[in-house]
């Protein structure tokens, strides 16, 4: 078996196959980056709506809470299928990339909303009262006082979530998105050894995740020292 693997190596690592895998890596990173970034922005909006004061905003708060509670409890693959079939009702031949991005976005919005909410709520109440006493609007209080002080709490878990999602994007191969795992299946179907193909795929996932994990750890160390210290320069 080992001999067969060694014989296959030059053919497997041909320039065509390497380009094929590189496109898969690009697709995986694009899905993760676009889906999680959009999810983070939508999560921010969701938390802002959830914390809107006043009785008139009660339906908005309820809607935001319901969204988070529901979508955090549904497996990502099920969300992906739901998006696939739901979009199919309205759009013929919808792009699989779009379907995957929407699914990632829905899932990451629900998850990162809780991370952002935890970060906002970690800012001492007295800081907010000081801003209120000086007539800061809700938006100014958020952007000038709460957000700068909550980044150290939000960024490390948000980065960790995004890194973990690099691996979870492999699930969208189930609906035919041409990302890294799907390309692995294709190469395997072309007759290459499963060990060689998925060993390489595993190595590529590791190479994508590891530097980002180190980045996350560095950010955590840099930011989590204390929000009570001046920003590091």
């Amino acid at each position, binding site marked *: 078996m080992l001999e067969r693997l060694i014989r296959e190596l030059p053919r497997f690592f041909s320039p065509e196959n390497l380009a094929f895998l590189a496109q898969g890596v690009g697709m995986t990173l694009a899905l993760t980056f676009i889906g999680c970034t959009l999810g983070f922005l939508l999560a921010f909006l969701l938390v802002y709506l959830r914390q809107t004061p006043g009785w008139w905003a009660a339906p908005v708060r309820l809607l935001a809470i319901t969204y988070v509670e529901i979508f955090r409890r549904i497996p990502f693959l099920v969300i992906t299928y739901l998006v696939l079939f739901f979009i199919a009702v309205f759009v013929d031949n919808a792009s699989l990339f779009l379907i995957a991005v929407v699914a990632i976005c829905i899932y990451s919005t629900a998850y990162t909303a809780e991370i952002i909410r935890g970060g906002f709520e970690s800012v001492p109440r007295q800081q907010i*009262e000081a801003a209120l*006493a*000086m*007539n800061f609007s809700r938006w100014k209080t958020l952007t*000038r006082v709460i957000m700068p002080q909550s980044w150290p709490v939000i960024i490390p878990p948000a980065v960790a979530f995004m890194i973990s999602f690099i691996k979870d994007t492999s699930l969208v191969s189930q609906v035919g998105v041409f990302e890294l795992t799907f390309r692995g299946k294709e190469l395997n179907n072309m007759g290459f050894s499963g060990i060689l193909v998925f060993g390489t795929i595993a190595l590529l996932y590791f190479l994508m995740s590891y530097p980002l994990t180190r980045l996350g750890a560095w950010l955590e160390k840099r930011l989590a020292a204390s*929000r009570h210290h*001046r920003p590091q320069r």
Partner: protein
Amino acid sequence: MPHLDIIDLSADYAHLKVLSGVSLSVEKGEVVCLVGPSGSGKSTLLRVLMGLTLPTAGAVKVDGREIDYHSKASVRAARDRMAVVFQQYNLFQNMNVLRNITIAPVEIKGRPRREAEEEARRILARMGLAEKHAAYPDQLSGGQQQRVAIARALALKPEILLLDEVTSALDPELVNEVLDAVRGLAAEGMTMLIVSHEMAFVREVASKVVMMDKGKIVETGAPRELIDRPKTERAREFFGKILRH
């Protein structure tokens, strides 16, 4: 007409009555000191005045105009005329001293940045902190932070300044730094409502002392009258205990 008129003011914290029918008039340029045991409602009174805790009954008037604490516009207008300095300073930890002082004048009141910064430097110099403009709160001592908090309140150009136990979180040697700053303001004629436990300071700066207990005003009088010759049993007991130390 009183500068600040508090009429029969009440407030609750989760059904617990913390202010009960408080009435108090403060004339322009007057320094009124609120004294009393912990939990007597002194700090709550300042919070209610600033609209940080909603009153359940009563009225507050500034120059005869009543503040409607259920109206954002009315509360904003009141906060334009009053400023508070908190017991725990509450400086923004993510901003340096200069930004802490100029952020509201520039971003809320729309003053030109350069003008606000020049004004901030002047106030800081008056507080003896001219060289600390670039420091962050965690680089300052408690006394310095408290003086920055006072500078931040003054930069808002308030007509009425509310000070909530501004020396209670400080080491004894830092207390005078802050009290000197407040003495200066009193001498300049700033209307002030001060919560304090520093009886020597109260005697010196107050034009009127108000003793509170259990959310109510127990007795009001000139410092020498109230502190040295209290009329009520509760005030005698309170001053007897604190002056013994």
